[in-house]
């Protein structure tokens, strides 16, 4: 980014845990319900109400901790984080302060062929707040409404060490973390629904400097792209400020997606004193090793192991393996296709190429696509046996994506069958050579273009259905005999 400065990034990620009920009461956690229909006296902070810890949320935290190579605390506790806000019914959030459930850990990221180990500082359990609904803009709204459906949804806050050195690395960390949470089946990780959220701590320092620069915390990062852009912007802003002799102020900033800038929200002086203290309504949580072992045994294959398997077994590159292990659904698609058609490179290319492109264009997830592994496998088989060309395959694939029809049907309907029959191609080749004596002469004189002309003519005559490889060979043989 700059030859004079190094960027230092740490991320705080909030993942909503995929439990059926909230962390301290029995209310549903389902997304998208009518406002205030998934509430009870506990999660709306009524007098005399007490929290009861959801064991499933603890399971999720242990799973994540194990996947992130963390130490699962034998003894942890909950604390109250005090602040007033209309969406926080008790005016304190039950969180974990000095004794989190997961301590330490790491995950490895690969950016441009270079592997970096990012340390995990901690991960702790807490409850989510509700949300405010404004009439238009927050500054001009005549009143605000409070929706407490989200209040009490379990969150795991995962804090990284300041081990990332570029926006690309931060994005790669976020993507890797997301895939781990998805594989562990502990969170839906839908950034657009807020079930995965991220704050970035960014600072810059002159190259070679050991001491960290003053950091700012960026909030409101709702997508991978926003994360990357915001960090790039913020790092540049800090470098320019330092170049201009300014001092970086420790503060919280918000990312303005529309304008593409970060803006100051509040300074360190305005920061809350959260007055943390141990939550007296919940006894400390003791996690015996049997509990951890039970969870460990229930752990599915994690993306790191799956990726390694793809590289070892099929010789895929790290890059391809990372892409396929982005989500368990991706991997499942790959594994199922491969079981039917054993060319890993071909399957991977089609998944990462046309399939990903079409999914992105249509804003779909792989599990919702009409193209199923069996269809892709069949298409690849037809390509391999020469029934269709690579170009035709693209057409077939797009059609399969839209209709979900099997490739045979599509080929028949569109008349896409490739001509791979020498007996029907040879007379055509003869005819074209005979009709173009001048070009033949050019060829004999060593003009390369002449060969291409003949190919073009043959393909044109067969409406592109001739097997290009076969045409190539037959034409060569034929011309050599002249």
């Amino acid at each position, binding site marked *: 980014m700059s030859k004079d400065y190094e960027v230092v990034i740490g991320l705080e990620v909030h993942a909503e845990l995929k439990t059926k009920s909230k962390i301290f009461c029995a209310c549903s956690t389902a997304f998208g319900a009518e406002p205030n229909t998934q509430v009870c006296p506990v999660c709306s902070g009524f007098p005399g109400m007490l929290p009861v810890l959801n064991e499933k949320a603890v399971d999720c935290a242990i799973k994540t901790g194990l996947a992130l190579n963390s130490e699962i605390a034998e003894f942890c506790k909950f604390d109250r984080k005090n602040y007033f806000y209309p969406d926080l019914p008790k005016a304190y959030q039950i969180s974990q302060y000095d004794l989190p459930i997961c301590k330490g850990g790491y995950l490895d990221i690969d950016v441009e062929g270079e592997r970096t180990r990012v340390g995990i500082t901690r991960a702790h359990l807490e409850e989510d707040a509700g949300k405010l609904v404004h009439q238009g803009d927050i500054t001009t709204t005549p009143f*605000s409404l409070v929706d407490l459906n989200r209040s009490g949804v379990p969150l795991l806050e995962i804090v990284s060490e300041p081990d990332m050195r570029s926006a690309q690395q931060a994005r790669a960390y976020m993507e890797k973390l997301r895939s781990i949470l998805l594989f562990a089946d502990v969170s839906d990780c839908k950034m657009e629904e807020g079930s995965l959220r991220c704050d970035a701590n960014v600072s810059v320092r002159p190259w070679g400097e050991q001491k960290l620069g003053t950091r700012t915390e960026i909030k409101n990062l709702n997508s991978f792209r926003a994360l990357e852009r915001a960090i790039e912007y913020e790092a540049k802003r800090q470098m320019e400020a330092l170049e201009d002799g300014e001092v970086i102020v420790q503060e919280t900033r918000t990312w303005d997606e529309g304008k593409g800038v970060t803006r100051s929200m509040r300074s360190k002086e305005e920061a809350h004193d959260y007055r943390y203290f141990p939550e007296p309504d919940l006894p400390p949580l003791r996690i015996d090793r049997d509990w951890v072992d039970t969870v460990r045994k229930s752990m599915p294959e994690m993306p790191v192991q799956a990726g390694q398997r793809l590289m070892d077994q099929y010789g895929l590159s790290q890059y391809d393996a990372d892409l396929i292990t982005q989500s368990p659904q991706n991997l499942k698609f790959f594994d199922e296709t491969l079981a039917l058609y054993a060319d890993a490179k071909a399957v991977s290319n089609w998944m990462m190429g046309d399939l990903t492109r079409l999914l992105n264009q249509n804003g779909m997830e792989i599990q919702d696509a009409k193209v199923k592994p069996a269809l892709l496998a069949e298409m690849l088989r037809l390509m391999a046996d020469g029934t269709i060309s690579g170009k035709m395959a693209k057409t077939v694939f797009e059609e399969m994506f839209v209709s979900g029809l099997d490739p045979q049907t599509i080929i028949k309907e569109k008349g896409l069958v490739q001509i791979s029959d020498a007996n029907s191609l040879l007379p055509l080749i003869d005819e074209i050579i005979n009709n173009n004596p001048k070009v033949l002469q050019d060829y004999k004189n060593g003009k390369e273009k002449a060969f291409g002309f003949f190919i073009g003519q043959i393909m044109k005559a067969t409406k592109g259905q001739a097997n290009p490889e076969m045409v190539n060979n037959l034409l060569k043989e034929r011309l050599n005999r002249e």
Partner: protein
Amino acid sequence: MELHQLTIHELQELLSRKETSALEITQAIFSRIHAVDKQVRAFITLTEEEALAKAREIDNQGEYGRIAGIPLGLKDIFCTRGVKTTCASRILENFVPTYDSTAAGKLFADKGILAGKLNMDEFAMGSSTEQSAFFSTCNPWDFTRVPGGSSGGSAAAVAADEVPFALGTDTGGSIRQPASFCGVVGLKPTYGRVSRWGVIAYASSLDQVGTFAKDVRDCALVMNIISGKDPLDSTSVDLPVPDYSASLDGNVKGMKIAYPREYFQPGIDSQVQEAIKKALIKYEEMGAIVDEVSLPHSEYALPAYYLVATAEASANLARYDGVRYGLRDFEAANVIDMFSRSRAEGFGEEVKRRIMLGSYALSSGYYDAYYLKALKVRRLIADDFSKVFAKFDLIVSPTAPTVAFKIGEQIGDPLTLYMNDILTVPINMAGLPAMSIPCGFHEGMPVGMQLVGPAFGESTLFKAAFAFEQNTDFHTFRPALEVK
């Protein structure tokens, strides 16, 4: 004796012999309330109609259990479904819960009849019931005196024969001190023995539900009903509940009773000390072994308590922000202003004082010096008690430093008022069970004796208290109310 004067077990007997009905009892209770409560002022809310309907229903069913058909009072800190629950605060003046607290729900399930909700110091912060946002309650023994607090309404109602029993809560002495001032039996069980679910929180790690009764037998009976693990309260303890009534055998022979020298200091009224010493002699006569012990960290209990309790209160009371229920200021210009104004209008002086104290104790830079230090002191206090209970079955002391004081006498001086809790607070800090029973009179006012047991040793308290009751008649005295 008239119906309203009887104990639960006496009423039970009449009911089982069909010599009275739930309706007769309930009517008697309400006519007593109407006769005396204009002066005593124990009740914030009366639920007469519902009570009479319930009584008829119970009579129709014709089966009387442990407390079936017996009226009861609840400190207005217990949430009651469909019945206003104010915590004696303006901020909850019109709050009607949609749920019954677990303890109250257990009494209702046992067919106990709610007569009404009882006055208290606002959010249980006080020792005289003068901190109620609505009115002060008078001591039935002398209307110019306080009934104690914070469960003053509960104690006064039982003492004035307005209800046979009532529930209260005790955070630093709020059951025992008013029981002492009003000459009734009051028990604060072990922390975790009774569910706190649905009880409006003051200081969560200290709050405990307990009961006021006219005698020890009634107290045991109510405890049998309300005790036990509640899946909705993670701090309630899953230990079997013994039949407390079974420990009422009157035998204290060989029981080892300790009296801590720190609880018999010059700050404690000499006549009060005298009454306790006489009681100890009585125990010796009954065959108990009595000896002096030391609880060396006692003097630090009160300051440590006021840090822990106020810190927790500052968070517990933060939810009263006017957003979802309770008092809201509609004049506010913005949301922060709404919070401030609602809370400024809704809370009384003492509540604000404790919220500020607690917020300060938890503030960045002060936490270690105040809150954390207080937690360490708390551990030392608990250790003091553990050492004594390794050798003794019971600790005996005065409940309060004095008999009931005059209304208005201490109200302007918070520190003097806080001193009322000096003998009761250490027990909450240690989470132990303790009971106050009548053991004498001074200036015509009742004196209470505090019995303290080891954790979950309520049976020992009942045993010792019942034996004392069997050998004395202090519990039979009732205030001669001059009904105007």
